[in-house]
């Protein structure tokens, strides 16, 4: 240990102890003759197992370092050695290490970090291009001194190489080995310039994000995930520096320097700027296109807004009026139609009033136009035009509602109302066509039946057709995938026969009718879905009743 106030080598007066590292103590000393301050680094003997060997290394090392001259390196001007101590006299660097700035202020401003990075890259490049190349191996904020003038200097550069090798026989802590590059654990042979590039990348990451890559989560993430304001260009540079595989990093400091000097150009913002310039160049040609694009954009954003509104209205909708509002907001989307239909039929009954709510859609909905006048909007026409598939779906669903839930006395009413919707859905739904045919038939029968002069013969012709259609309906049921729809059709067949027993017996043999019913009964029994077992039993009972009715009518 040097004593404060003592004179070293007859020239340097030790003023103060200014720093302490693992193996060395640094003193501030004054050359009183030249009135100049120097730093003296004393390599501690007590921290080193085999001091003699280390000293030999130090001599070689410092001899080489004495020949170095770079603005970001402290120059070594003298080496004083005897049996007990080893002193290195070098430039005294004022300022604080960047690790202190990190501790006090956290992440550093990006512009500063890039400026420092360039200086560090420059000095590393200088070291790497010596013969033989010098690899620094220990780049970290604690080893970068920030001088009062804002420039940085690489310090702790004078201790022997041996110390820099990570001693891995003993347990060590990631924090103490610094930002060691993956290959750095393998010994001296495998480290090269790219090792320093890795460590510089990790240093920049720590400086610009304030996050130590040696602490959880122990990795180097894209810096904009931590601070979105940072440059995308710098993000790319840091990620490239810190690739696990040295081959994937910048291969030399010159490459890295080029990237640092042009970091804005690999920035997304810069790229956008460049594109803008290009845009200005072709502006005259693009003007017309632009106008179109603007209106298109306006249209699209209006559409977007519409869709947002639609969702909000639909979410809150409770009454049929609410659903109308949603439909008016966007008649082309089907959700509101379907929800309205569900609302009206959730009790399995579609009352006359409820039926009218659906039928209103065919007439048109009232809406205020832009002048504030009431206007009738044919929403279904818009739906059909812009969403033909959706239109058919809606019509089929509404048809079903009338067909199966409409609360009226006569089949004829049900069918004629349902057919108004089914007719629009025949393209997509086979069964819709069958229902429409039956509706037509029933209409004719109704006409003949209600005519002043009964046309019994013609009527029975229609019943004969109707019987044929029931057969078709049964075939359609077989091709329907949905078990529910199939059950509905079978129920419908039974219902038709049950209410027209005598008429059908006039046009066909009882055995035919019974065999149709029995087949349905049997087929329904084959359905395996447990949830509909009750419905199946109900259908089978009703069919049994119909058969009884048939038999008694025959007699």
């Amino acid at each position, binding site marked *: 240990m040097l004593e404060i106030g003592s004179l070293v080598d007859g020239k340097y007066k030790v003023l103060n102890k200014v720093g302490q590292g693992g193996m060395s*103590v640094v003193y501030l000393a004054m050359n009183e003759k030249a009135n100049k301050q120097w730093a003296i680094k004393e390599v501690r003997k007590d*921290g080193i197992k085999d001091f003699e060997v280390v000293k030999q290394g130090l001599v070689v090392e410092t001899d080489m370092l004495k020949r170095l001259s770079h603005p970001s390196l402290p120059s070594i001007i003298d080496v004083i050695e005897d049996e007990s101590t080893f002193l290195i006299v070098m430039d005294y660097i004022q300022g604080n290490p960047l690790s202190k700035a990190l501790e006090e202020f956290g992440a550093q401003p990006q512009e500063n970090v890039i400026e420092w990075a360039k200086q560090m890259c420059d000095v590393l490049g200088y070291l790497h291009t010596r013969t033989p190349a010098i690899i620094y191996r220990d780049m970290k904020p604690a080893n970068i001194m920030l001088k009062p003038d804002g420039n940085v200097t690489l310090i702790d550069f004078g201790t022997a190489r041996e110390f820099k090798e990570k001693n*891995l026989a003993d347990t060590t802590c990631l*924090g*103490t080995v610094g930002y060691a590059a993956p290959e750095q*654990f393998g010994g001296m042979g495998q480290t090269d310039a790219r090792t320093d590039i890795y460590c510089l990348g990790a240093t920049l990451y720590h400086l610009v994000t304030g996050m130590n890559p040696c*602490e959880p989560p122990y990795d180097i993430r894209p810096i904009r995930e931590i601070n979105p304001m940072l440059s995308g260009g710098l993000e790319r540079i840091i990620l490239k520096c810190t690739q696990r595989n040295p081959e994937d990093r910048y291969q030399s400091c010159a490459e890295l320097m080029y990237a640092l000097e042009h970091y804005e150009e690999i920035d997304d913002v810069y790229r956008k700027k460049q594109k803008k310039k290009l845009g200005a160049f072709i502006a005259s040609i693009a003007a017309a296109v632009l106008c179109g694009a603007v209106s298109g954009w306006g249209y699209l954003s209006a559409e977007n807004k519409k869709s947002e509104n639609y969702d909000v209205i639909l979410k809150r909708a409770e009454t049929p009026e609410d659903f109308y509002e949603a439909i008016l907001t966007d008649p082309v989307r089907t959700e509101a139609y379907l929800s309205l239909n569900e609302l009206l039929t959730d009790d399995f009954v579609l009352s006359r009033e409820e039926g009218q709510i659906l039928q209103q859609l065919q007439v048109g909905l009232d809406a205020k136009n832009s002048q504030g006048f009431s206007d009738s909007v044919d929403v279904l026409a818009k739906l059909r035009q812009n969403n033909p598939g959706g239109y058919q779906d809606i019509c089929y669903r509404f048809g079903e509602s009338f067909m199966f839930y409409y609360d009226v006395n006569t089949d004829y009413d049900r069918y004629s109302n349902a057919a108004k919707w089914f007719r629009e859905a025949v393209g997509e739904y086979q069964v819709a066509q069958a229902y429409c045919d039956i509706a037509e038939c029933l209409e004719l029968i109704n006409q003949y039946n209600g005519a002043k002069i009964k046309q019994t013969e013609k009527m029975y012709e229609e019943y004969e057709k109707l019987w044929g259609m029931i057969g078709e309906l049964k075939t359609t049921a077989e091709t329907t995938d949905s078990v529910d729809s199939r059950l509905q059709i079978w129920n419908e067949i039974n219902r038709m026969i049950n209410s027209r027993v005598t008429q059908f017996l006039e046009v066909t043999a009882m055995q035919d009718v019974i065999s149709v019913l029995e087949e349905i009964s049997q087929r329904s029994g084959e359905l395996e879905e447990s949830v509909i077992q009750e419905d199946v039993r109900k259908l089978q009972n009703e069919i049994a009743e119909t058969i009884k009715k048939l038999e008694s009518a025959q007699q």
Partner: protein
Amino acid sequence: MNFIVSASTDIGTTKKTNQDSLSVKVIRTRLGRMVLAVLCDGMGGLSEGEVASAAVIEAFHGWAVEKLPLLCEKPYLQDAAISEQWGEMVTEQNRRIKSYGAKKGVRLGTTVVAMLLTQSRYYILNVGDSRVYELTEGIRQLTADQTFVAREVALGNMTEEEARMDERRNVLLQCVGASDEVYPDMFYGDVRENAVYMLCSDGFRHEITPGEIYDSLKPLELFDEQMMKWHSEKLIERNKQRGERDNISVALVRTF
């Protein structure tokens, strides 16, 4: 539930100092008997490692004397209270050891694995690569190593086999006294009856397999403190015979 405890440590074959520190204590509390076991594997220049490991052990003792009785005044121990107090304590120790190191110009640090066993629950705090195992019908590791290679294995960059051979196998992700911040892992669970809980430094487990540990230290083998000591020392000897150079420490808690 009752506990028998033992602790054994050995300087090993090559090192000049034993930087491991360990302590196992049965504590009487208002909530019944408890065991506090702490094991620290110190590191640092020459004699400083044991300073760090001893300091952390002391801190846990202080906690057991001062803070634990207060926690026991409630009808039951709260997991969150323990993890909070232990976390603060380790952070404080990290700060102290770091400033001690800065003052002396040395780098020192320590791993710590601390375990509190109550009548029902156990609580483990871990920083570094010391481990806790539970031996019942089989052997189960209760802690996860905070090491560079363990992390690489977890990330899928390395296989278990590669990790064992890797040069970085002794690099800890963090340790008390050398990290800027420590982020301890906490583990909780229910204490099993007729089980053995084993805390060990990395020196104890490098050369012998969990299977060997289980054969010697399974609950059936350990019926009194003497047997526990005898088996521990036998395993420590086996480690040394197989070339382990590190300090070797193991602490045992047998429940019945």
